[in-house]
């Protein structure tokens, strides 16, 4: 299989960056997308050119390191998959693949396809936890949690923090990311005491980190590799309003 690669090349945070076009041949369909890039990077290296920088680690869809825009879509053509889970059998001979970094005001580009997503950490640091000290817990089965609630909390907690939702949002909003963490914790009885404080603190941190607001485009849900839904965003807003109405500490 032969492919034309159009790749965003940017040497560093302050460089302008531009697309470069390359021909890449000898691709087999069993290769993963990232293995296709590995092989191409080997070619660049042999030619004395600096390889394309891209992030990746676990290569099984769970660490959240990988991802870029592939033909305008975060993580490429497959629903429910990160870029490392895309295989070249999704493409055919002669295709052109355009690769760009995740673009958002809150995600500055560091090099080529690598962006800085540490703004996500600052949102979690603001309140994405239940305040419990090590050693202070009661027996785990003392407080039963309804299975349906535990399962839903789990679904919300499967977010991998990849940033696809932000990159896909016309406003560069982190609402899906933030609301999923709030939903996970606020849904559980353990998370109840800090419910409103958590929502307010995390949303404030999100705004401070230069993420945009949600205006219901729902592009985030469409590209989330973990299938996280926008219903959490409305729950988040409800938490915010209730927090304000009842003047809970924030």
């Amino acid at each position: 299989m032969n492919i034309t690669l159009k790749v965003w090349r940017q040497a560093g945070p302050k460089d302008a960056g531009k697309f470069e076009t390359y021909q890449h041949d000898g691709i087999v369909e069993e290769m993963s997308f990232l293995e296709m890039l590995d092989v191409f990077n080997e070619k660049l290296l042999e030619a004395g050119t600096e390889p394309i920088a891209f992030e990746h680690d676990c290569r099984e869809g769970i660490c959240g390191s990988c991802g870029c825009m592939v033909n305008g879509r975060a993580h490429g053509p497959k629903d429910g998959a990160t870029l490392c889970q895309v295989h070249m059998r999704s493409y055919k001979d002669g295709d052109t693949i355009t690769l760009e970094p995740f673009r958002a005001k809150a995600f500055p580009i560091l090099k080529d396809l690598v962006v800085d997503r540490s703004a996500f950490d600052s949102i979690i640091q603001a309140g994405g936890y239940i305040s419990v000290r090590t050693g202070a817990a009661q027996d785990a089965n003392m407080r039963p949690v309804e299975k349906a609630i535990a399962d839903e909390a789990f679904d919300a907690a499967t977010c991998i923090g990849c940033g696809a939702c932000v990159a896909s949002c016309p406003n560069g909003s982190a609402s899906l990311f933030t609301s999923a963490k709030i939903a996970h914790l606020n849904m559980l009885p353990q998370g109840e005491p800090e419910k409103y404080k958590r929502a307010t603190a995390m949303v404030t941190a999100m705004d401070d980190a230069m993420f945009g607001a949600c205006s219901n485009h729902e592009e985030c849900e469409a590209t989330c590799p973990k299938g996280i839904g926008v219903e959490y965003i409305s729950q988040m807003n409800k938490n915010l309003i209730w927090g304000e109405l009842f003047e809970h500490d924030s």
Partner: protein
Amino acid sequence: MLDLNSRCPDGPIETAWDRHRQSIKLVNPANKRKYTVIVVGTGLAGASASATLAELGYNVKAFTFHDSPRRAHSIAAQGGINAAKNYQNDGDSVYRLFYDTVKGGDFRSREQNVYRLAQVSVDIIDHCVAQGVPFAREYGGLLANRSFGGALVSRTFYAAGQTGQQLLLGAYSALSKEINSGKVKMHNRSELLDIVKIDGHAKGIVTRDLVTGEVTSHAADAVVLATGGYGNAFFLSTNARGCNVTATWRAYKRGAGFANPCFTQIHPTCIPVMGDHQSKLTLMSESLRNDGRVWVPKKAGDFRKARDIPENERDYYLERIYPTFGNLVPRDVASRSAKKMIDKGHSVVQGGSGVYLDFADAIKRLGKDAIAEKYGNLFDMYKQITGDNPYETAMKIYPASHYTMGGLWVDYNLMTNVPGLYAIGEANFSDHGANRLGASALMQGLADGYFVLPYTIGDYLAPQPHGFDDTSHPAFAEAEAQVKAKTDKLLSVGGKKSADHFHKKLGKLIWEECGMARTEPGLKSALERLPAIREEFWSQVSVPGSGAALNQQLEKAGRVADFLEFGEIMLRDALTRNESCGGHFREESQTPEGEALRDDENFQHGAVWEYAGEGKPSIRNEEALEFKYVLPSQRSYK
């Protein structure tokens, strides 16, 4: 010679940890804030240790080479975490978990350490639930359990096939809380490149900022390494691509003993290798063996589709050979059995290696929905990678490098033989002996980080002067200079081949000669061939770009250079240990039935390698192991 006093408490094992905690020195709460601890790594062990140390009042400087602490490879653990809760009323107890773990490790771990691990396992579950980790639950709202290999009770807690992710996010949230409180200073995208010792004590580290390339010194009163295992020595493994031996190897070169490097775990259920371009192998959780049946065609070279092979022409070899444990034998046994079947020509992958893991019976028995509930994400993952649907056809699996039991030698306090230098989680060697049981890595990482190290580190710190913060000491300048010289050297080789090229060569050598089966001639030959790969690396590697910017090739080359050195003690350890135990199978040492045959008389010890200086052969030390509770016997899962 290294000082290998384990400092394990004497007396009854049931009360050993409690008595130890009573007897070790404590740091006064008002003084804790005057001490600073460096923690390198933010996986389960590192994140939990950083959070807990900060909660206690210590200042923590935490480091990860990832862009965020949440990316550490603990995130990929699938199946579960063991704990002796006995919620199933099936006869589990702290003692049984202890017994299973010592036996599962084939009598090559310390009894006291393992007993403590089993004891604190129950606290881990309590704490994680309180943090909001969404474990699987039953309809009554109580926690659910499943079974894992090497145990006859159901003690594994899980969150679908993403238990590691949920536990790591729990530890990451606790860490984030302490970053927010200001007690933890987090350094992302910072790679440890050296340990700094002053007057024999670990007092700091040197890191490279992976974005700017800046080399920086960091001082502290103690240093904790939570930097994971060395499974990527095999190149192809289930480890993330970034996992490496660099931190522990640099610690080794600064005097820390490296124990049992030949104890590596080859996980039986991974997706088989499919071509030369393959960059990693994907694990299919051991939990699948609860319901999946492993088989090969009875006739060698039978490549009909799985569904076309009639029942009477299939060999469910684990059920046949090990009727008691069946498909749930420990990992080392399952892996070796698969290899034996392949060696006899029963592979189900044409031109490659693989056996079937089949869910047809379980789907018939429980229904597709029940199977999807338990394993849905794993089945989806399998389909994504292979294009085959495991609901309709049998999975193909084969063993792959997964975990390393060896690591830095530590005493009962988890301190290496370098005062003030600690190793926790997979980075140490302490609890799993020669084979780790499934769902025990998460347990050990969190035990070390939440419940052991935060107490034991006080014993070292209490008598030390506090607040060491002097990076102007010449030892820092010397370490920085060495780091910079190595970076410059890598950048100046000017060869034509990628670091991956050499990593693959090393991996092939280690997999073939130091993988599932090892022989004296094979290991000797590998030791002869290894230096040539190393030399070729240093004359042929290509590292384009600059050291003063983000340079992934430079990062990779530095890690491969360390693996190329490390491979030597791995091979030598395997060669010297002329017995079979756990994951270390020497073909010369087996029972007539082909099971691992230990030699307790000569090898009932941990082998601890000591750095002797550049170009000099490492020195092998021994820590004798004593078994007072679980008496060594031939491990049998029949």
